[in-house]
């Protein structure tokens, strides 16, 4: 017998840690660790839901009553958890390929160093397509596409 407060607090703590990791980290790989924690917070709730009887919280008998209600034969909570784990594996494979590409192009995995699209950077223009002083190589090629 497990109080449902436990999984609820655990999921909230994992989600909070995940959001902190997503926002506070600069290294791209460590940002992805925060995303994994967020996905796992969702998984904890899904597995907890699979321990509930069919019909969810409303069908749960009041505490103290020891009857064992039947669970959903499709086990949606556990199946969804396995689906989320699969999607997380697909996501991290693709995301790490992007990080490796970034490292090969720029020699860094630091997200604050990649600010070409930020308004404060030297290469930023309000009108994409017009060459800027700091971007002479890309300028003429992009200019040629615009009639």
């Amino acid at each position, binding site marked *: *017998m*497990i*109080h*449902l*407060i436990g*999984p*609820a607090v655990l999921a*909230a*703590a*994992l989600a*909070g*840690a995940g*959001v*902190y*990791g997503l*926002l*506070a*980290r*600069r*290294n*791209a*790989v460590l940002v*992805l*660790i*925060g995303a*994994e*924690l967020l996905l*796992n917070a969702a998984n*904890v*709730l899904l597995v*907890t839901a*699979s*321990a509930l009887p069919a019909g969810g*919280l409303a069908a*749960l008998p009041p*505490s103290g009553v020891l009857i*064992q209600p039947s*669970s959903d*034969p*499709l*086990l949606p909570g*556990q*199946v969804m*958890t*396995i*689906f989320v*784990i*699969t*999607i*997380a*594996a*697909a996501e*991290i*494979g*693709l995301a*790490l*390929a992007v*990080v*490796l*590409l970034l490292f090969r192009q720029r020699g860094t995995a630091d997200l604050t160093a990649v600010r070409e699209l930020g308004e404060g950077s030297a290469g930023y223009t309000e009108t994409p397509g017009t060459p800027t002083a700091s971007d002479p190589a890309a300028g003429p090629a992009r200019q040629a596409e615009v009639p």
Partner: protein
Amino acid sequence: MSGVEILFAGFALLAAAAGLLSVTSRHVVHAALWLVVALGSLAGVYLTLGAEIVAIVQLLVYVGAVVVLVLFALMLTRAPIEASATLDAGPGQRAGAALAGLAVAALLAGTLLVAVGDRTVSPAAGQGSADRLGLALFAGWVLPFELLSVLLLASLIGALALSRDRRR
């Protein structure tokens, strides 16, 4: 407090503490290894909740594959092995991130605690056994399952296309 509840509380505390350490550690490798501890103890949490196959899949896929991928990415991007101050953003952004994380945790905990009240749940024996889960997966969920295999294939091809060296 029953034995299963004590076991659950232990695994949950370990998972929460390791998760917090994995996002605050100043060593990149330590962060990845704390992620192993967090994901492994989450497998224990799933076991105490009666989802044994999900716990095994968690160990196989997350601890076995995802963390190894993360460690490989850390090595390939030449992450600093020793403690480094360049992993985190500035103190202002860190404070904002902590505020956002606390707000998310408080909001989730508040709504969930109101929703569950003081209800308890006792996982049925054999609820997450391989035959029941296999039957559910390949009878009721077979179309989403096949779609997911196509998604995995697409992400594999995408990762290959992205990491191909175009200079050669």
